[in-house]
């Protein structure tokens, strides 16, 4: 067991013990929202008193994908879009792990969209934190499946015209047992949601809207990181339990935030065990915790 129950006195930032401080300074820009979400995540780990040796972060590729590199946990920076199937293998091979997928909107819903819906359908016991900055940031701010209509990006120089995904609705429809959306402004609520999913069994999905002042806000003349925070504050409406079909995002519309879904459904392993016991009885050998000698 390795939890941090009491904070060392000299630590001013309570989140520091969760970070690979030797890897700081990080690569994120000033005003970027990703670090804010990591703060919330670290606080959630602290609040839930998780055994940190058993919490694993799996990221894809992108600015958000770099989260795996900064947390002082077992962590995997995988390939673009494939954090969820990697996490699936990890969780099934060692069910004692708490597996958190931390990645960007493009990574999880474009190139990795297929894995997102199938992991939700199977109800794999992993927790997905999706940082939505409305673009592919790492590669220079191209448009993606979450880019709001009319937004200017480097590959939609005349404004985006493709309809975008409503991610909570997608996760809900595919079968996630927990779906929430917050913004980088809603630090406390985000922390609470993260704490809840760390303790909840099944496929959980948290979308967190996050400023990318460097590439999204600037290009769309939306100001600096602080202006985005003000925008989040002014435009957000908390509607816990809102039907996810009603929470689609627009360029400057109201932002519906809250915990939309929190339900129970047997997860993949429970379903598997149930089926095998029904069919095979005492011939069924439960997968042992893996060990290769």
């Amino acid at each position, binding site marked *: 067991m390795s939890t941090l129950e009491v904070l060392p006195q000299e630590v001013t930032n309570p989140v520091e013990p969760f970070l690979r401080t030797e*890897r700081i300074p990080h690569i994120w820009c000033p005003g970027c929202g990703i670090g804010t979400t990591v703060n919330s995540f670290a606080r959630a780990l602290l609040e839930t008193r998780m055994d940190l040796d*058993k919490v694993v972060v799996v990221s894809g590729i992108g600015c958000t994908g770099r989260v795996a590199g900064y947390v002082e946990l077992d962590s995997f920076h995988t390939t673009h879009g494939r954090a969820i199937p990697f996490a699936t293998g990890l969780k099934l091979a060692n069910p004692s792990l708490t597996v958190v997928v931390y990645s960007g909107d493009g990574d999880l819903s474009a190139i990795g969209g297929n894995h997102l819906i199938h992991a939700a359908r199977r109800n794999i016991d992993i927790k997905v934190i999706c940082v939505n900055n409305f673009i592919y940031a790492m590669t220079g701010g191209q448009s993606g499946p979450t880019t709001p209509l009319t937004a200017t990006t480097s590959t939609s120089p005349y404004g985006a015209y493709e309809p975008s995904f409503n991610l909570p609705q997608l996760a809900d429809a595919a079968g996630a047992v927990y779906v929430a959306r917050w913004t980088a402004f809603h630090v406390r609520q985000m922390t609470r949601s993260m704490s809840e999913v760390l303790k909840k069994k099944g496929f959980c999905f948290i979308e967190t809207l996050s400023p990318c002042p460097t590439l999204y806000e600037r290009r769309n003349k939306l100001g600096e990181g602080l202006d985005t925070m003000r925008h989040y504050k002014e435009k957000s409406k908390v509607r816990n339990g809102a039907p996810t079909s009603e929470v689609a995002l627009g360029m400057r519309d109201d932002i519906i935030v809250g915990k939309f879904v929190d339900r129970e459904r047997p997860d993949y392993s429970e379903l598997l065990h149930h089926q095998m016991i029904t069919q095979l009885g005492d011939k069924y050998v439960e997968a042992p*915790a893996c060990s290769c*000698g």
Partner: protein
Amino acid sequence: MKNPTRQLQHADPAGVLTGTHFLDGDHACCEGALAAGARFAAGYPITPSTEVVERFALRIPKVGGTFIQMEDELAASITLLGAVWGGAKAFTVTSGPGFSLMMEHIGYAAMTETPCVFVNVQRGGPSTGLPTLPAQGDMMQARWGSHGDYEMIALCPNSPQECFDLTIHAFNLSERFRTPVMFMMDECVGHMTEKVVIPPADQIGIYPRRHAVRPPGEHLNFEPDEDLVPAMAHAGEGYRFHVTGLTHDERGYPAMNPETQDRLVRRLVNKIRMAAEELVQVEEEGIEGADVVVVSYGITSRVAQKAIELAREKGLKVGKLRLLTVWPFPAAKIRALARGIRAFVVPELNMGQIVNEVERAAGGAARTYGVPHAGGTVHRPEAILNVIEEAAR
């Protein structure tokens, strides 16, 4: 297989179906994986390889382990890597188009030094090609298909018995070198049924995972032993390590500079190159005094055998060299042979892949003749015989 650092262990009897069976190559491969200790497979159906995971799905709930059918081969080929870092021995199985989709994760496995096995039951290509018919057109893809520089280990069985034996060997090599191993079958070998003898578990040698021996704080997941291969800790053991496909240092932390790149890529390549002699497995027969040596692998070696017999009946001095290891390529063997013979003949079910390696290794000391075939069926022995006759002149 020499084992420079670790004692081989006995196989876990739970996975070993000791006895004499009639199995096709696909099923024998599955039994080999189970005997090797594979307790995790992720797959996506594709002819002619699906039987491997179908059998695994049937067997594994009674052995103790996991099979998951993923949504595509991109998923399957990284789910298994997650399972390995969770502590499992794992593999995936595919053919043709699926192998193409797996390329990114073969590179990721090489870069992150994740021991695992990719089985490819080759069928006719390019593209959808001939789903139910044989070819050996993926030999270069197995070697070079993922981007960037790395060394590859690839084995080619030519019978169901070898599908069993060499699958175990493939797992052992993957653990020994902490690297992905390509198991390159073909439709004929996959679907042919023959006698397969599965020995008792205590007669099967298993190379155990090179697990971290030092405690957390003192162990680095990418710090090599003397043979350039590092030991690994699994997730959840308290090591708090990082793994990335980015160029990384011994701790596994990204380091974006040419020095680290050089150190890492050289080591990834050299850990296998350095051991080529230990790794390379060939079968030779009638090489002494031969004028012509037929170099073949997989199903084609069985047709080549017939052609060699026909040539010998005609009084030609023909030797046989069968490659069980295709990658790393047995270049030293070819080079040595080239000095004493007139020519190599290289039949293969592709338009000329391994023949170029033979020619390169021969370095002009002996002539090299290919016997290309686009696949869909095996060669006619006469087609190979004709080239042997031409090469002997």
